[in-house]
């Protein structure tokens, strides 16, 4: 819980990882990609405040203690949602897997939500394995990485019939939150990972599932916003938006937030710190202190209320994942006067 000016915020970090990208875990022959991937992530960290930058060795592999400290002791996070990314083509035991995340979560009851993932290219075996993981870890969400490499394939689409089978399986297993990575990295060649049209397709066909577009489709939020206005079950995952823009590019952060609020509204925005790319502490504190700037340039956008901040930082995600919110953190809670300040 984060308390500022007497207001209590229930913080759900909607996007976190426990990864191993150390050289010992690089697949022989794939070192270039394994190294390039983690260095690319590391470059993103440079968009946060200088005092939060890590050396590459620490960034490649960090300890469980480090993570617990950064998220819960110092980062104000109440519950964090694991979003796995396997990348087994490049990392021998996987980059950030359901199993690794799940084992860590079991050692810290109540702190984590364990999501899993699937890949429609895995066919029937993949469906079976998904069911096993979902039951083993009690998964209510999945993280999908449509740009993941597998053999000669450089990715897949949510529009495919194979993907539809997996989405049906999700419904059957009670997995209702589908996080889709649509963000700034790659889908090589002329296939385009930034294209959110496959989410549009799936969201229409599966109205009972929620689709959280991670990184809001950056670098093309215009496609995302237009799609999201038409699909009520589409949400904006704010990782990268807060971590990548709030500190490094505050003017654009304001405009991007303005657009997201303009097109989607405050009930469909979900905070995520994207640890260990960025630590949650400066993001949570910065976001609570943040306000839409004044001036002509921002005149199309509304100001952000405390209620909206509470929803975005935790309550929206809590609703998606049925997390119990302390009554004093809810939006209906009466606002408490700061300690030592008498009520007028």
């Amino acid at each position, binding site marked *: 819980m984060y308390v500022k000016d007497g207001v209590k915020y229930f913080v759900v970090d909607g996007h976190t990882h426990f990864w191993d990208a150390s050289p010992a875990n690089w697949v022989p022959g794939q070192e270039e990609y394994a190294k390039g991937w983690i260095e*690319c992530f590391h470059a993103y960290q440079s*968009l946060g405040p200088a005092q939060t930058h890590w050396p590459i060795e620490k960034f490649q592999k960090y300890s469980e203690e480090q993570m617990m400290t950064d998220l819960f002791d110092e980062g104000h996070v109440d519950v964090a949602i694991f979003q796995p990314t396997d990348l087994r083509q490049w990392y021998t035991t996987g980059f950030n897997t359901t199993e690794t995340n799940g084992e860590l979560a079991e050692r810290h009851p109540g702190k984590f939500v364990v999501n899993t993932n699937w890949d429609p290219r895995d066919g029937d075996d993949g469906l079976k394995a998904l069911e096993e993981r979902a039951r083993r870890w009690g998964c209510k969400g999945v993280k999908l990485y449509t740009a993941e490499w597998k053999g000669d394939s*450089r990715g897949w689409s949510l529009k495919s019939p194979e993907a539809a089978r997996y989405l049906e399986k999700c419904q059957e297993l009670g997995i209702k939150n589908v996080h889709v990575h649509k963000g700034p990295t790659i889908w090589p060649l002329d296939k385009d990972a930034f294209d959110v049209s496959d989410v549009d397709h799936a969201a229409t066909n599966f109205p009972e599932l929620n689709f959280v577009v991670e990184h809001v489709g950056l670098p093309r939020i215009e496609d995302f916003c237009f799609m999201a206005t038409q699909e009520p079950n589409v949400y904006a995952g704010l990782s990268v938006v807060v971590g990548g823009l709030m500190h490094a590019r505050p003017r654009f952060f304001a405009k991007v937030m303005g657009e997201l609020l303009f097109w989607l509204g405050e009930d469909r925005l979900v905070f995520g710190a994207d640890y260990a790319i960025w630590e949650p502490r400066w993001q949570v504190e910065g976001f609570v202190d943040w306000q839409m700037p004044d001036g002509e340039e921002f005149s199309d956008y509304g100001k952000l209320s405390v209620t909206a901040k509470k929803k975005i930082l935790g309550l929206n995600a809590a609703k998606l994942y049925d997390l119990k919110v302390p009554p004093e953190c809810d939006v209906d809670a009466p606002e408490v006067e700061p300690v030592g300040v008498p009520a007028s």
Partner: protein
Amino acid sequence: MTSVTRTPDQAAAVLAAVWSALGTVLDPELDEPLTHLGFVSHCLVTEDGEVRVRLRLPTYFCAPNFAYLMVADSYDAVSAVPGVRSVSVKLEDHFAASVINDGVARRSGFVGSFPGEAVNELDDLRADFLRRAVLAGTDRVCRAMITAGVDRFTLTDLTLGDAPEGADRERLRSRRRELGLPSGDSDPLVLDPATGEAVTDIRTHLGLARLTRVSQEANSGVCRGMLLGRYGVKEER
């Protein structure tokens, strides 16, 4: 491509011309010149007219289709400069660098450079980005007019010639011309960039134009920040 430069002065003049040619090459997504973005890390002209250009991008995984466009466009722009005898353009520190560099040098096209992996040449992609550039440019021009007191609901009655003169208007005109859209002074100020037809719902159109510009500028901000983090240098001017 036939004349040979003979003196350091002439080489310097060619270098200046090469640099300004590179200034016409855009990152298709950001709609900004490579030279402004800091993507040209190295540009050398020898006394006998050989040009060597090196490009760098904000991440190892920048999409190879955009990277290919930038390398190929740089090659074409520099090749057209008088006094240039031969051109080599090398993309560095990118996972597909060697394939792209070889493909451009051999004039293989995008499909020829990635046999079995790429299906289409990049014309559609380029046109898509140009349409986005038209939308973002519409916000730049129209926002300034609205701020100056023009009623937004009258914008559909105005022509490109009614917009204030300046770089924003000319940039918009140029992107429209590249798409084959009407771009003369007497043509409509706002039009649908996909169809070229008149805009009926100006509110939504302006909202989309604003959103597209915000997206483009936010991406540009991320790319500049990443480049700074990766190479520790600010963009060159």
